[in-house]
């Protein structure tokens, strides 16, 4: 066991840091890390420019194969890069879905032609991607989705509606899972595609969130045509492909929970007063902050253990669900507590109190993160069933063809 860099790792870290120092500004500790969901064309441009700069210098998607524009780096090197990059101010990341989820899915399940076609432009940031999974009636029960694709000649004709699609209006491509056979059990009738978001018949409508952000959209499909060569993996194998995406999603949301910021609470509580003394001198305040930090550090070291498993050639399994589950609850509670410390000013969300505003912004963002990519309840089911081997929930749709699955209360005569 060694938490220190090997000489080779230290050299890699120095190289990464040197490049970042030349190309970015250091991050100040109170910079909010969660906002920035509200994208504008200007922000998208900045984000693409930063991605291009990294790609040209060989610092984009570094674990991906060299032949597709990556660096062939190890997971440990990727973690080192992530640690170093986190110390710098970088534009909001519009590639977390494309690079965090779509790319790994295509690299795992795509044909060599598909990889050549899409991966290099993902690396350079030229093309932005989104994920078209959830539907109004299929969230936690994703496999119950109803958007359909019917084959006509060499094309598929898609009809239906997707929802919670982040950044759809800025994207060239989307990954899409649809129902191609309603006569078989729900998981067996799904197929996975890549869709051109500029295709005729696609309509995108933004959704306003509780934090006023408009990160999400509804996406409507009316007779949208997708060429068969944009199908990923076999017809009917869409669920297996989707699981690859979802596991990557949980890892990427979990690792982006910003739990490092929890330790900022120590500084925050020493600046505020309770009954004329620094809040941090209050025993209960100290103990509560200590409890949050124990969890945050535990998550950090857990991600390092996951890395070790990766570097030993093991595939991270359902354990990855933990960081999102524990991190989401932790951050929401910590933000709530920080606001409590701020007293009546906790109602303010403006520039007069930038440190407090960062916690308030978090408090408004966190409910979304606890739902996105698998709700707490779904993640607990995954841990209980797949890690602890507890029995699955009883399912009323088990063994039924999808078309026969109940979708609402029975009609009364």
């Amino acid at each position, binding site marked *: 066991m060694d938490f220190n860099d090997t000489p080779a790792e230290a050299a890699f870290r120095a190289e990464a840091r040197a490049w970042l120092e030349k190309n970015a500004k250091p991050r100040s500790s109170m910079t909010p890390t969660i906002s920035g969901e509200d994208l504008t064309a200007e922000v998208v441009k900045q984000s693409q420019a930063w991605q291009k700069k990294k790609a040209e210098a060989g610092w984009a998607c570094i674990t991906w194969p060299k032949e597709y524009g990556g660096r062939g780096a190890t997971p440990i090197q990727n973690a080192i890069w992530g640690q170093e990059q986190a110390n710098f101010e970088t534009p909001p990341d519009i590639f977390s879905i494309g690079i965090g989820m779509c790319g790994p899915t295509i690299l795992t399940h795509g044909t060599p032609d598909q990889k050549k076609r899409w991966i290099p432009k993902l690396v350079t940031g030229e093309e932005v991607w989104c994920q078209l999974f959830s539907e109004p009636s299929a969230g936690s029960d994703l496999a119950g989705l109803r958007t359909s694709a019917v084959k006509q000649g060499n094309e598929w004709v898609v009809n239906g509606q997707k929802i919670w699609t982040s950044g759809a209006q800025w994207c060239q491509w989307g990954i899409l899972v649809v129902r191609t056979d309603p006569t078989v059990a729900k998981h067996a009738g799904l197929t996975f595609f890549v869709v051109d978001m500029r295709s005729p018949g696609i309509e995108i409508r933004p959704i306003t969130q509780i934090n006023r952000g408009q990160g999400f959209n509804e996406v409507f499909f009316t007779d949208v045509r997708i060429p068969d060569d944009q199908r990923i993996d076999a017809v009917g194998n869409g669920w297996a492909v989707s699981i690859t995406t979802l596991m990557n999603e949980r890892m990427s949301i979990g690792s982006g929970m910003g739990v490092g910021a929890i330790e900022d609470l120590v500084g925050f509580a020493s600046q505020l007063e309770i009954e004329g003394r620094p809040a941090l001198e209050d025993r209960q305040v100290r103990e509560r902050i200590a409890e949050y930090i124990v969890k945050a550090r*535990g998550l950090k070291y857990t991600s390092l253990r996951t890395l070790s498993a990766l570097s030993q050639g093991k595939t991270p399994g359902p354990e990855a669900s933990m960081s999102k589950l524990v991190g989401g609850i932790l951050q929401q509670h910590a933000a709530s507590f920080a606001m409590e410390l701020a007293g009546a000013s906790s109602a303010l969300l403006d520039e007069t109190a930038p440190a407090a505003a960062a916690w308030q912004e978090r408090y408004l963002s966190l409910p979304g993160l606890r739902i996105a990519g698998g709700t707490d*309840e779904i993640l607990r089911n995954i841990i209980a069933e797949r*890690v602890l081997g507890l029995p699955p929930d009883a399912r009323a749709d088990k063994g039924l063809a999808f078309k026969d699955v109940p979708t609402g209360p029975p009609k009364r005569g």
Partner: protein
Amino acid sequence: MNFDFSDDQKLLQQTARDYLAANSPLSTCREILEGSQPYAASLWKGAAEMGWQGAVVPESFGGAGFGYLELAMIAYEVGRALAPIPFGPSVFVATEALLRHGSAAQQSAWLPKLANGSAIGTFALAEKPGQNAAEAIAATVKDGKLSGTKLPVADGDVANVAIVAAKEGGKTGLYLVDLAGAGIERKPLESFDPSRSQATIRFEGARCEPLAGADATAIARLLDRAAVLTAFEQIGGADRALEITREFIVGRYAFGKPIAANQAIKHRMADLWCEIEIARSNAYYAAWALANEDAELPVAACLARIAASEAFEKTTIEMIEFHGGVGYTWEYDCHLFYRRAKQLAGLLGTPKYWKNQLIDRLRSAKAA
């Protein structure tokens, strides 16, 4: 970077697990809990033959000369087995105190005996109920004679040598006391967890020797080391409690299905698993800091100790709840875990102490 134990360390762990499975099933813990023996003497002897008590003691003193990562693995297995032996107080504290602060004469007098299990060591800090700060103790030393009362002292009834915190000329220090000497009166105490002994020791002019450099700060550092190793013992217990609970809820049927199929139970099991994993990750980091004498050790020890204390206690509370009525019976083993979790959390500073320390230490690390 590598955040896992080595294959050799895992092999050592497996050997320890196999040995304890054969020689310390839960019935061994129960025998001590119910009987009149203060600890499992044959198990203690067997552990010494495996080299556990002397794991980090140099070979020149008859130890195994392993590192702290190996000792952490052994501590984990001792915890998993709820082994009823005075392992923590003797190995994590008394032996450590001698290794770090003992003179050459003190070390050669005691380390060989502690390493081969022929002597049991203990640590006497607390004097009364409540949180006992090293600065606030009343025991005093004058002219090499120790006076005062310590309560409770883990394994104080069976220990041969004690490391005692006392004040001399107003300054806190640690003193080595041969418990066979004169001026020492010990009395076993009824305990919440009778599988582990407790006693009170009254010193009246007992002969003692100071440990060099063991001031209040050094005592805190000594507690850090013991805290990391105890965290492994606690996580071992938590893992085993969760496994036993898992097995029970899968086999127990109600309303025509295993009770484990209910989300009310599944989800709480998932939460417990997360608590234990958080504790494990913090403990791994702390073990690394301990093995490398890293400057992060004071912070890492707090993290490991807080997380492990809470994970073990929470797991044992749910263990009884999920077992239902039988979980509350003397016959079932749930209460062995429930007791041990609380007993270990009370040793060496409660979570309250460690939480306050964590904030202090993070602040001074930041200021430095």
